[in-house]
């Protein structure tokens, strides 16, 4: 599963728009609030990203691409027979560092 998700995200990343600049992708598989299988993906953005690019409208194409890639990978990787709900989140690099220091994802 880890390999599949890692490969899927790497492939998806190659298709991202040039801005906002994505410097890292993190993910975690788990169970969501109502007990469904889920995968959380954190898109880590360059700290130099202009404020004007830190907008839902700019994030949405990236999130759509990630969700579509995960759905496709899970559908085609039938041996897993898994239905994971993708939750895509965005953080700046400095924010991600702070989360890491706090010992979370």
């Amino acid at each position: 599963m880890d390999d599949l998700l890692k490969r899927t995200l790497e492939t998806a990343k190659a298709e991202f728009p040039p801005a906002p600049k994505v410097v890292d992708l993190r993910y975690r598989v788990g169970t969501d609030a109502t007990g469904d299988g889920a995968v959380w993906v954190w898109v880590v953005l360059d700290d130099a990203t202009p404020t004007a690019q830190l907008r839902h409208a700019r994030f949405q194409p990236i999130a759509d691409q990630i969700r579509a890639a995960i759905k496709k990978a899970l559908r085609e990787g039938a041996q897993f027979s898994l239905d994971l709900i993708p939750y895509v989140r965005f953080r700046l690099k400095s924010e991600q560092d702070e989360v890491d220091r706090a010992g979370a994802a």
Partner: protein
Amino acid sequence: MHEDLLEQARHLATRDKKGKPKQANLRRAVSSAYYAMFHLLVAEATKHLLRNTMAKYRSRLARAFTHKAMKVASKWFTEGGTIKGLGPVTVPPDLKAVAQAVLDLQQARHEADYNLHEPLTRTEALEFVEKAEQAQKAWKRVRKDDVSDLYLLLLLTSENLKERD
């Protein structure tokens, strides 16, 4: 109500302009953004189902909506609209955006309220608020579409639908 909640969400997410924002403000912003969507859709559904002399029952019917049923229905609509027991329906992009916002915000609200282990960032909180704002605009554009009626009904009934025989 939903407009006030959305305004409150924006206010809280942008309140701490300098330095590290307070976790309480970011977390309440996300929670308010979700409930702005929740109350908008419940109000729309009850208004649609209970008219004229039945309007007095709207607030009571509103209590019958559950987060789980709203999630189930929203998940179907984000996945291209294959509805359990009904089959495929065509989902316009605006309705898909509304359903995606409900799905994302519901989970985010749960984490904001209960997962104190993981800090919520300003970028995340602002995106959730903006997602709710955009979804409310999308809803205004798509609410008259026939398939939006189905979505509203499924927000209440999705968990009771059976597979087709």
